[in-house]
């Protein structure tokens, strides 16, 4: 989802575990939180760095498609709200980078890995936001899908990650509601506005379903991550929950889900729906989505253009500290 296709290790059986690993697994099973300085398997540490890092990158890159509309929001109020939302995303990125840093990697190292392409961010942010209705669809569907994944992660076994998720979830429901609010306004507006809302839903539906990642029922990576409680539900479970929750919301708007196979299944008490196009998903992940180059380019440019400023603030801080030290010596 915000972290897709995170590589873990094959799950170990109790016999294959070392005594330390078994004691660690027992702690996780008891629901204890693991804190940064405590012993943890190397695989747990590495998988978490990949997962939290990818999640953090998604928050930061996710600012770009929405930032695109800050200057063109239809009213001053909408503009202030969108600014607040995009600012929240920066904060979410920061919480997550800090959580990742407790595992022994620095934020700058994580950013280097984003910039050189060795770490990914969610596929969803490689789609363009063409109209104002897209901002509604992003809040409603993309943040809605993110919440699906993030709510269970509040119970994850790694303390700093869990605490970051709790903070993020508190703020995230504002994001989804503001998106739905935009969709309501457009869906109840002129026929042209309603058509824009439908068009946004048509374009974002399938990419939103892809956010959960391909089916991982049989994945050994997932089995290990679930044993470690750094993944709580399977991708399919989350996707099903998302569809079941979203369909009535679309009905309320009077918009139709762009899937001819969407049908209520009384037996499973959920909707049947079409799988998204996984070939497209892997193309986007590989860097060939509609906006991959633009998004990564914007991040790299911001980082490089800001280097002189970051350095200047460090130089100022160092000079200031030296001045204070000299003043202390003079006073003694």
């Amino acid at each position, binding site marked *: 989802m915000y972290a897709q296709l995170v590589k873990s290790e094959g799950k170990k059986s109790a016999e294959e575990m070392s005594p330390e690993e078994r004691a660690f697994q027992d702690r996780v099973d008891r629901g204890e939180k693991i*804190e940064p*300085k*405590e*012993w943890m398997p190397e695989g747990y540490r590495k998988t978490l760095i990949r997962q939290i890092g990818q999640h953090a990158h998604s928050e930061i890159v996710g600012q770009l498609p929405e930032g695109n509309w800050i200057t063109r929001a239809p009213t001053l109020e909408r503009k202030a709200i969108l600014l*607040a939302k995009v*600012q*929240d995303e920066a*904060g979410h990125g*920061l*919480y997550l980078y*800090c959580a990742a*840093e407790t595992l022994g990697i*620095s*934020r*700058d190292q994580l950013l280097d890995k984003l910039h050189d392409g060795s770490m990914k961010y969610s596929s969803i942010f490689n789609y363009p936001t063409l109209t104002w209705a897209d901002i509604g669809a992003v809040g409603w569907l993309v943040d809605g899908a993110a919440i699906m994944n993030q709510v269970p992660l509040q119970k994850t076994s790694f303390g700093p990650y869990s*605490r*970051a998720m709790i*903070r993020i979830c508190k*703020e995230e429901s504002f994001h989804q509601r503001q998106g739905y609010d935009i969709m309501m306004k457009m869906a109840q507006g002129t026929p042209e506005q309603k058509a824009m809302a439908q068009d946004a839903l048509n374009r974002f539906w399938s990419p939103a379903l892809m956010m959960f990642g391909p089916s991982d029922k049989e994945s050994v990576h997932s089995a290990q991550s679930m044993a470690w409680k750094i993944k709580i539900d399977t991708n399919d479970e989350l996707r099903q929950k998302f569809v079941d929750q979203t369909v009535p919301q679309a009905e309320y708007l009077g918009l139709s889900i762009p899937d001819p196979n969407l049908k209520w299944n009384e037996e499973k008490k959920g909707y049947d729906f079409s799988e998204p196009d996984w070939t497209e998903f892997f193309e986007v992940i590989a860097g060939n989505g509609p906006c991959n180059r633009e998004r990564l380019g914007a991040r790299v440019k911001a980082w490089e253009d800001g*280097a002189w400023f*970051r*350095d200047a*603030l*460090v130089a*100022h*801080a160092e000079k*200031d*500290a030296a001045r204070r030290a000299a003043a202390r010596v003079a006073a003694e």
Partner: protein
Amino acid sequence: MSSEWPLWEVFIRGQHGLNHRHVGSLHAPDAEMAIKNARDVYTRRNEGVSIWVVKSVDIAASSPSDKGPLFEPSNSKVYRHPTFFSIPDEVGHM
């Protein structure tokens, strides 16, 4: 040059005369900027009335392996809790 900004731990006092409480961390070049950033990141929804920031490297912490020697001795000292002593009902509230 590009040296990484140091990490700061952020403590916020909530509205109700509580202690400052650890809320998270952030990067900043100096204390002044750390407080400004903490305001932007950790108090966007009226979470506090006062901010402390401390450089993470300046925090000394107990080691997880010392958990036993540090905290187990108090397990057996149940008399430190008022409920250890039973006071007859006739005495009234104490």
